[in-house]
């Protein structure tokens, strides 16, 4: 008994410390809701820096005073009302574009009274059957100036019959309103985002035919796993001539053998370890104002009410990378995150009928860097024969050089018709060497048994910075699709 008790205390102490530590580096400010049902589904920064919020019930507000240090100074000014579940805003040429249930709409205030008075239907070529799960996300503009919208598939009854283009990503020319169907196989694509250079990525929620939550890059003519949208391939505008239906039980890494259009994800989010329902995301465009992760991607989770961090790199023409925990403890499942003009991240929340962490049904919060540098893995790059880890601070060379301070295993997933799926074909990956480089800024791990098509889960215990700081989040999950030759 004597030996067990201290261990228990240590574990409890660690977890408490981890929470405190996140708080030390990134502070959550909570805005009062002023009695409004702020179930936020859309959140964006307009060109003048103002923050626009959209709620599930279709209200659109400006969050005025959202940059004040004291969050209590916020007030909400109504801009529009009565939209059908807007789940994304994008400002373009003086209009705010939004994907509603049934259409892509642009709205503006034409008479300058502060309220939108024109709601123009840009495109309503996709259909809805009246099923609750037919959410639409976006739009986001790609490098060609086209607007991408991802279309959720229905789940359950469809009162007005089967609707076309559900489970697709489409893009729309904002000038003509023409819809160009791009990809299918999407399940519940709750986040769609354009990278700073106009590449389009989306997040998908695990379930049937999407057996692990993921982040994927989108390009025309691809298939992402869920067969629901396949019947629409027969319609005019479909990019597919021929596309086979997936067979349940195939390893996703092998799917391209039977389905040439199959696209592997950029990042898998292993179930529960990295949330359950990835949603909105945003690139760190703060140029360092938000801390050490400029250029990286933050992905929110609607179940875990937290924000994760993703490092992406393009390898052999494929976007892939690693995900890390970043900041937990928001008051409700997160739908949208967006950077403001001052390098703070605005976070919009709604549980919208789903369970999740947090004690509120909705919320509007703000995340700010305290200015203290956390000790974190900054990047995890794949190299021939291993990974190169970089850190936000110089490491303690002795600790970082010991291979026993690293543990790695790899696993993958099958594409299956059942809901969710386990980690499959798990094997340990042995660390042959840990080489400290660049005066402690980087560590090169040489491995035995790297496998393409597998998540490589790395746990770094006992790693400390030169200044004695513990590694804030010692786990990293790299989705290795391509190994450099």
């Amino acid at each position: 008994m004597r030996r067990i008790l201290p261990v228990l205390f240590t574990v409890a102490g660690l977890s408490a410390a981890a929470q405190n530590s996140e708080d030390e580096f990134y502070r959550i400010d909570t805005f009062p809701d002023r009695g409004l049902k702020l179930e936020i589904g859309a959140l964006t920064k307009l060109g003048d820096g103002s923050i626009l919020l959209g709620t599930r019930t279709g209200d659109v507000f400006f969050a005025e005073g959202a940059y004040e240090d004291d969050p209590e100074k916020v007030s909400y000014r109504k801009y529009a009302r009565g939209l059908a579940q807007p789940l994304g805003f994008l400002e373009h040429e003086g209009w705010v574009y939004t994907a509603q249930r049934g259409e892509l709409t642009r709205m503006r205030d034409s008479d300058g009274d502060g309220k939108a008075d024109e709601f123009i239907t840009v495109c309503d070529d996709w259909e809805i059957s009246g099923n609750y799960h037919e959410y639409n996300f976006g739009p986001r503009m790609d490098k060609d100036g086209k607007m991408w919208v991802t279309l959720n598939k229905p789940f359950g009854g469809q009162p007005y019959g089967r609707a076309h283009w559900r489970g697709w990503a489409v893009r729309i020319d904002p000038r003509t309103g023409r819809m160009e169907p791009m990809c299918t196989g999407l399940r519940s694509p709750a986040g769609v985002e354009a990278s700073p250079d106009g590449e389009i990525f989306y997040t998908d929620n695990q379930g049937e035919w999407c057996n692990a939550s993921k982040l994927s890059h989108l390009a025309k003519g691809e298939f992402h796993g869920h067969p629901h949208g396949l019947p629409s391939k027969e319609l005019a505008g479909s990019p597919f001539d021929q596309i086979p239906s997936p067979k349940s039980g195939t390893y996703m890494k092998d799917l391209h053998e039977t389905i040439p259009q199959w696209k592997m994800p950029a990042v898998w989010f292993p179930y529960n370890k990295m949330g359950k329902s990835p949603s909105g995301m945003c690139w760190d465009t703060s140029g360092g104002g938000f801390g050490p992760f400029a250029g990286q991607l933050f992905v929110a989770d609607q179940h875990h009410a937290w924000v994760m961090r993703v490092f992406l790199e393009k390898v052999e023409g494929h976007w892939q990378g690693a995900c890390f925990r970043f900041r937990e403890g928001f008051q409700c499942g997160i739908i949208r995150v967006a950077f403001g003009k001052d390098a703070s991240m605005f976070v919009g929340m709604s549980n919208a009928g789903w369970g999740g962490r947090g004690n509120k049904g909705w919320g509007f919060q703000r995340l700010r860097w305290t200015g203290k540098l956390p000790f974190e893995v900054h990047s995890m790059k794949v190299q021939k024969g291993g990974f190169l880890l970089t850190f936000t601070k110089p490491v303690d060379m002795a600790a970082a050089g010991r291979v026993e301070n690293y543990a790695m295993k790899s696993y993958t997933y099958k594409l299956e018709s059942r809901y969710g799926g386990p980690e499959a074909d798990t094997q340990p990956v042995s660390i042959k060497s840990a080489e400290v480089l660049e005066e402690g800024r980087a560590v090169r791990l040489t491995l035995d048994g790297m496998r393409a098509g597998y998540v490589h889960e790395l746990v770094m215990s006992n790693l400390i910075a030169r200044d004695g700081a513990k590694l804030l989040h010692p786990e990293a999950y790299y989705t290795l699709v391509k190994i450099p030759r």
Partner: protein
Amino acid sequence: MVPAFDLLHGDPEGKAAAGELLLGELNCLSCHEQQGDTPVVATKRAPDLSAVGARVTPGYLRRFLSENHEVKPGTTMPDLFHGTAAGDRQAEVESLVHFLVSQGGGIQSSGRGGSARLVERGRDLYHSVGCVSCHEPEMPIEGPGASAIPLGELAAKTTVDHLTAFLLDPLKIRRSGRMPRLWLSENEAHALAVYLLRDQLKNQSGLKTKAEPGVRWEYFEAPLGDRLPDFETLTATKRGTHGTITFNMGFQKRRQDFAMRWRAILKVPKDGKWTFFTVSDDGSQVLLNGEPVVDSDGVHTRKEVSGSVELKAGEHELDVRYFQKTDSAIFGVGWQGPDVPKQRIPSWNLFLPRGNPMSPVGHETMVIDQQKVAGGAKIFVNRGCASCHSLPGRESSPGANPFADLVPDRGCLSANVPANAPDYNLSQVQRSALKEALALREERREPLTAGQIVQKHLASFNCYACHQRGGLGGPDDSRRGFFGTKMEIDLGEEGKIPPNLDTAGSKFRKEALERILYHGEMHVRGRFMSTRMPGFGKENLEPLVAAFLEADARPDDARAVEFNYGSARDGQALVGTGGLVCITCHNVGGRQAVGIPGIDLAEMQQRLTPGWFVRFLHNPQAFNRDTRMPAFWPGGVASFKKIAGGDTNRQVEGIWNYLSLGKSMPPPPGIAEEGGTGSELKPLLEPVVHRTFMTDVGPRAIVAGFPERVHVAFDANVTRLAKTWRGRFFDSSGVASGRSDKFFSPLGTDIYNFPAGPAFAFLETPAAPWPSVGRTDRDVGGEFQGYRLTSNGEPVFQYQLGGCFIQEQPKPVLQPGGAVLQRHFKLRAGKDFARKGLTFIAATGQAIEKRDDGSWAVDKKVSLWIEGNQEMQPSVREGSGGLELMVPLSLAPGDQLEFNIRIKW
């Protein structure tokens, strides 16, 4: 016994009038014929005897025919056999009894029984709804005016079933309306019948029928408030029995505004503390032996509420109630007690409630003797019964002296009635009044004045028991105490005692008088008085309505107040806080007044004439000494100066203009909105435009609600205006709560559906069928292009069909009688517009008719006006599902066309 006789007779001028009243109430002229005008305007016919044998016991008939003045002292039925020798008399009566019993073939025992609780409930009703205005209260009263219409030996006469049916509609049997309808519900009539026949219970105490397992349920559809309704006053839409308390019976078609009630005998297995639970959305209650145990009343989301009570093992009365207003409908009930874990109440503890059996006192069944029936039939005709009682195929010839030849003190009018004349058991005073009436026979051959006709009606129907007119009548002191209020509100005498009728024909519009006198409107609307305004039957009171109008109407009553929007807005401000605060004592369109919930402002304009209203506002006390309505314009000078320039006429007309909006009245400042869940959309100050899933419209509905309480739904999939309705707007919780998956219907009333297909189409030939629309079809009516909001926040929908750009603006337009919906269309043909045959469909229906005023009547639901900036040529044609009102449009490239469709309910 003729109640108003004493009243008229007491008037120095009224002796002849009292006699004339008797001539009508005793139906003298059916034997003593009179040609031309008579002083009798409303004759009381005797009860209809068809099927009398099925509802009255032979024993009662026998006793009543033998000695009617003893059995029912004060009856207006004369004794026909007073001069017949005892033996013959008995034989004749026996034959008549057999004949009458053969009409209907004998009385069956009653399916329904009674209980002490029902007696109590019936007693309350008897003494509150107005019965005792004519009949005697249970505790006899004394003093002048204490006389009452006798009930006779009811307990020996009939059964609970028959008396219940009679009370529900007395005019079926007593057509002359002296016994009026009191607008009782089925439950109320049953309770009242049990009370009136309570002696039948005494005889058979201890006798109980075997308990049958089950639950008695009732289902009600009615507009509901925010609390459980008063079930006793409602008549069930459906009722039946079931094995257990089940909410989901499969027939609740509507999602809101319904209520259910389950009653059973609960067999409790053990003494102890029993806890009952309900889980409900919205309100529910559990009563045991009449006492509430669980109270979860009110509009709320899913909520579990429990309550406990000590119960002895054995039978207890269980009464479970539920109502659904908005949002989801959820209901469940359970219990927990000694050795019984929390669970639904098992069916083996539930038994059908049944009262103790009740049957007529002293009743013995009788074998009908056909020979006696034949003899009785002859007597019925020869004795003159058929002069007063209608019975198909039986008519008595008058045979008596004509009215003009009648001699006072002879025949029926003798102090000792001769054997050949019927004995009415008249008093000396009655005989002298009749004599007076006979003396004036010649003078009174002149047509009566309207005032006289009114007075005679008020006397015949005993309106004077409750109402005063011209200083005559009104409740006397012995009965005043029976007039009360339904709830604890202090409205003084005004809230208890029915109003005086001094200016009735000037005050009320003709249609309002008709609604009140024939259809029980005051009962339906009267929220305060416990006494009900009964229904006397249209055929009985038609002359009264005409006479009221002729006697009282003043030339300026119906003067046209020109409707003016600004003036109505003044009126709105005046009635609210910041004005005269009329809303302290007046409800507004169903919303509670701030103080005492008095007469609803939205209902006044339907009833009152404008002229009377203006005079009343100037000096309310002149019309009703006891009124609590303040005089805001004493001496014609406005006491409140801020609105309408302090001008009396402008203020009063403003209020009238505002009242003329009726149901669609936008609420005045300060009034509380009606209840409902937080997700109910309420367009209070500006329109509300909201996208939603909607029943019958689809997943892309856009609803627009207006403060004028007229609303529309647009379908962006088919591209058409789909619905319009009035009253409350829309509950957004279908897509604003849970997982946003519910389709809801409008909350309001008067829902009118526009044609199911597109609003516009190109027809190759005028006879080509209108495009039909399937559930998943889209863009049939054009390509939806969105909407913009005007500076007032009203939506203008935009769509494009074959190169024609269409804008439709639906909006309410205020006008007297309530807001109407105006659909304003603006069409612009593009440069490349080449298609022919553009047609608009204004309405579909089973009956579409053009009226003289240029409007189109559609299915008696709405009237429609079509007006355009070019000549519109609407026409009706046969369509696939009925008639179609088509409007062909001609447009060349670049042309613009505007037109309006106005829709009035």
